[in-house]
């Protein structure tokens, strides 16, 4: 049976957890050798993507994208981080901040497959559709 990228990534995660850095290196070397042997090196990109996903999931880390109209200062980002931790119940949050003037004001928070839209643009659009009704 064909082994999927997800299965590779999962076994790699299991092989490296709880091992010191020196050992990890040799595990990875062996892993790459295995891939080469199975002619699966082309899957490497997918395995990396899956590995990040699994790593984050197991460690309770969540990658978040915050889009805001203006650049945010550190304090606001920290507040947002705490808010997201409270909301999603994870241990750690990695925030990627982007600026988009089109939002006018407010922020949009994306984590996992959730979206929290607090931008003025969306509110104005909602108001528009409400008034048309």
């Amino acid at each position, binding site marked *: 049976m064909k082994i999927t990228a*997800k299965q590779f990534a999962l076994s790699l995660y299991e092989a490296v957890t709880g091992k010191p850095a020196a050992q990890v290196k040799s595990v990875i070397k062996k892993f790459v050798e295995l891939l080469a042997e199975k002619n699966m090196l082309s899957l490497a990109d997918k395995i990396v993507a899956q590995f990040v996903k699994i790593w984050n999931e197991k460690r309770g880390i969540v990658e978040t994208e915050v889009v805001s109209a203006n650049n945010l200062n550190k304090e606001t980002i920290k507040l947002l981080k705490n808010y997201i931790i409270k909301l999603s119940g994870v241990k750690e949050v990695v925030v990627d901040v982007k600026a988009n003037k089109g939002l006018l004001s*407010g922020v949009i928070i*994306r984590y996992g*497959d959730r*979206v*929290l839209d607090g931008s003025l643009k969306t*509110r104005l659009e*909602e*108001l528009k559709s409400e008034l048309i009704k």
Partner: protein
Amino acid sequence: MSTKDFIIEQLKEQIADFKVKAKQETVGRVIEVGDGIARIEGVSDVMMSEMLEFKTSKGSVYGVALNLEEDRVGAIILGDYLGIKQGDEVKCLKRILEAPVGESLVGRVVNPLGEPLDGKGEIAAVKHYPVEKIAPGVITRESVKQPVQTGIKVIDAIIPIGRGQRELIIGDRQIGKSAIAIDTIINQKGQKMKCVYVAIGQKESKVAGLVAKLEQCGAMEYTIVVLAGASDPASLLYIAPYAGCAMAEYFLDKGEDVLIVYDDLSKHAVSYREISLLLRRPPGREAYPGDIFYLHSRLLERACKLNKDFGGGSITALPIIETQAGDMSAYIPTNVISITDGQIYLMPELFYQGSRPAVDAGLSVSRVGSSAQIKAMKKVAGKMKLEAAQFRELAAFVQFGSDLDKDTKAKLERGKRLSEIFKQGQYSPVPAANQVLIFYALINGLADDVPVEKISDFETGLFKYAAVSGAKILKEISEKQDLNDELEKKMKELINDYKDSEIWLRQET
């Protein structure tokens, strides 16, 4: 000035009341799209058959989640899927697929999503009903006992349909299946019935003609037409009968009687097969998926007769199945035959011989039987099915040509007249009282002296005569719905009087 102020005041008020909260929403991304099917990543808490909103550059398109897999969701797209691209955002709408229902739909032609197709303006629907609904249970039901008057003599006499029954209409293409359903709808005028006609994969030209006919007969006043045409995507064809049933259930819940026609379920099965194969569900016999039986059984199970405690309404279903070259033992026909409470089988031979509607008396059955007939009809039509079936057998036998005894000859003569009476033009339903009258004439030998080729003249003449001279008798039959000796005597007199009044009848007898 005051108007301007008023508007501004109103606007201020509205805006003050308007509050939006940042809502948490679940979204996903399209990873694959094509043939009316989309595969979506994310949307982790999506429900089965939940509505999804695809945000495209051209606006929103809606879809329904059908396959919930480990790391992806398979969805059908309702409407134009060409605008959806890979990577587009998909939003969960947190509600199961619904159809608008209500009185305002009556007299309209709508698509399965309840959007108008007849150009008569927007429909203000009060309520939305889920498209998929569990059928009423045992405790809420009661046995079928009221008739649906189809106005088609052969059906009302030998294969009666009751309110709450599911009667399959089956036959080859171009043989009058839809005609039976349409005649039945036309005849529901004044019978306190709402009708829903669901056209699945039909030519839109055919449906347009049909709607025009219904309008002309005044039947659109109590009819909803749900149209998923031949050019609509399979997803719309698939939900059409369920949406139509939801519209019917609105009236059921109000305690009304509804007649729903599914025209036709073989095309529905084909569209579901298309969806299933595209969603990579394993194919089974004739490439239909494993749950094709459940597809139809859960739909037809929603036809019911509720008891008094639950409103006493009913949904009568008339599904239509098209066979290929009379093959009743194909997969879908056998399935639907086993689900329904009987079938009306239309036979090509009869159709080409000119006896239309081409109902085969031997193969057609109604499992509800005579409990769905008015008593008067029961009395005159009791033995007719047997006689019709025996006649077919005898007629085949007699072709060898031999001397016949008197009994057989009489049976043959009677049979010939019977099948002559069963002939009926399209769009000309016959009221129940008139049916009782003509059948009474036949079984009591009052038509035996009328030559076979004159039977139809005899019938039309008799109805005309009865409308003038026997109006009281007809009224009594339709009011009492029963016959007594006195009434029978009156009917006999009426028929004899009519026979005396017709010159051609007197001359030839």
